[in-house]
């Protein structure tokens, strides 16, 4: 394959990575924005979503689409409820103190991960995609006869991957409507701006926190349900999404939602493109250091505003 089609293939893979990443990072960003909580266990909620998808899909059986749709409905809700429960049980009692919250969520990370290891086991388990038709994509060429389209061998994408991109975009629009147009969004934004005043105006801040924590985890789980048919479910799969989501949230500016979306696209696309052309380890080293530098020299993120 020549460079042009190769680049297009990399960009398509990058778009799929971005789609999953944007959901995961959104969850992290909302939790940080509203609650000021850095949730280190976020990657494990992602992993739980994937593992639950496998459980649901194998329990239901039959046509792959049946299990997939069921998992799409069940897994995020279940993970969200679990997260809300953990918030009630642990985070609420330590009063969301920043240092202790980080330590507690590190503890939650190991509890979730190791419990999964004990029940689900150490194997990676695949989930069949609900539909998976391969579409060949055309590429153009300026030849001697002028502009011509051709179908290079290997340049293709599956319908399922296109579905992932579309689904992520739909969820994102839904989230935007929820946050800006509904009363729930209003309550969340009020809590974010000043939780004490919100409480004085009758907003049940404690319950809002639990819902937000659940919503954040649910978004991560949703991303995982979408990714499982491409990647397999494994008990250690939460590490990479956590790191990437952190990077996205930092680059986008902690707590800034539009920034998060743009950063997710940027990071996902470059991850897809870089890993096609360069050594993945070197790319990761450079990316990690760059992000740390962003946090050191531009703590408000690339798109965030300076705190007044």
């Amino acid at each position, binding site marked *: 394959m020549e460079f042009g089609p190769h680049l297009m293939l990399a960009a398509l893979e990058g778009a799929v990575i971005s789609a999953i990443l944007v959901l995961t990072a959104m969850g992290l960003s909302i939790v940080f924005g509203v609650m000021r909580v850095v949730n280190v266990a976020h990657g494990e909620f992602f992993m739980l979503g994937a593992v639950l998808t496998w459980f649901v899909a194998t329990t239901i059986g039959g046509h792959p689409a049946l299990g997939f749709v069921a998992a799409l409905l069940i897994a995020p809700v279940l993970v969200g409820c679990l997260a809300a429960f953990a918030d009630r049980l*642990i985070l609420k009692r330590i009063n969301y103190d920043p240092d202790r919250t980080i330590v507690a969520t590190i503890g939650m990370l190991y509890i979730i991960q190791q419990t999964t290891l004990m029940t689900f086991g150490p194997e990676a388990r695949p989930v069949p995609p609900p539909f998976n038709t391969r579409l060949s994509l055309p590429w153009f060429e300026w030849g001697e006869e002028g502009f011509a389209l051709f179908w290079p061998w290997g340049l293709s994408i599956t319908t399922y991957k296109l579905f992932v991109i579309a689904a992520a975009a739909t969820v994102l629009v839904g989230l935007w409507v929820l946050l800006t147009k509904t009363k729930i969004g209003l309550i969340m934004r009020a809590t974010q701006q000043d939780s004490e005043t919100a409480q004085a105006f009758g907003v049940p801040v404690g319950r809002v926190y639990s819902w937000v924590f659940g919503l954040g985890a649910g978004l991560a789980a949703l991303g995982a349900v979408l990714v499982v048919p491409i990647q397999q479910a494994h008990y250690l799969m939460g590490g990479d999404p956590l790191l990437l989501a952190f990077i996205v949230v930092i680059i986008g500016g902690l707590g800034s939602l539009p920034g998060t979306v743009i950063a997710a696209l940027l990071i996902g696309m470059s991850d897809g493109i870089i890993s096609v052309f360069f050594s993945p380890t070197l790319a990761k080293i450079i990316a990690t*250091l760059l992000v740390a530098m962003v946090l*050191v020299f531009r703590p408000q993120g690339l798109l965030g505003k300076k705190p007044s």
Partner: protein
Amino acid sequence: MTAHGKSWVLHGGVLALLFALFFVLPTYHSGQLSRIMVLAIYAMGFNILFGYTGLLSLGHAMFFAAGMYGFGLTVNLAGFPMPVAFLFAILVAAALALVAGGLALRTAGVSFMIVTLMFAQAAYLVVLYFGEYTRGDEGFVVAREGRMIAGIDLSTDAGRYFCAWVLFGVCFLALAKLIKLPFGKRLIAIRENEERARMLGYDTSRYKLMAFVTSGAVSGMAGATYGLLFGYVGASFAAVPYSIFPLLWVLLGGAGTTIGPLIGVFFMFYLIDISSGYTNAYMLIAGLVLVLLTLFAPQGLAGSLRQKVMPWLP
């Protein structure tokens, strides 16, 4: 007896007890105890920064690993004599701490934790990237010549135990002394109220950096000691769990106490040792302990003791 006297009796007593235990314990447990002492050095290094200065780093594995690889690689590849390699390893860790600390200390709070975490992640990936020399996850064995000093073989049970005991003792007493010095008191002042310390005229950023470098150097020394005594160097010591462990030990034992790190490592080590006999998911115990500690005993064991019965505990 004065608080000062009691404190020296305690430190001396702990060291005497550890010395005597070698002759009492069966080989398996004395082996474990030498490992515990080495890891307690690491925990004490972490404690300087977290317990006394109030800075939570989530990336200390990079210093532990810097010491470990600084020692192992120079012995194996450059053929440095053991003491030179050991000092070199500490210098490498201190230099890394100077750079990482200089950058990370420009941030505070949550950002500081994430920046240190990312530096450590980058360091881990660097170890994997240079797999040709470091042999990545698989690791390598430190050459036998590098594990001798003045004719004493440090790979025997006794050599290992007493070398660990000496190094642990030096750090243990030095730390107890350090916190009584004006420098240590200034670190505690920064932990309690940085604004006020700065208002009183202390250059807090300089002291924080000094604490960071000291902490990194001690952690690096622990890493080098681990490589020296157990003869194995591997990438898993640079990975995220080894940044979380010292936090766990120090929290369990009691942050900001001299004896806390040893107690924390001891309990955690045996807790994991016992539970790994039943399940391979032994990190579950670590998670549970972390959550329970933050919920019910944020002071840790020694911290609770200090609060209730022994107010003089250093």
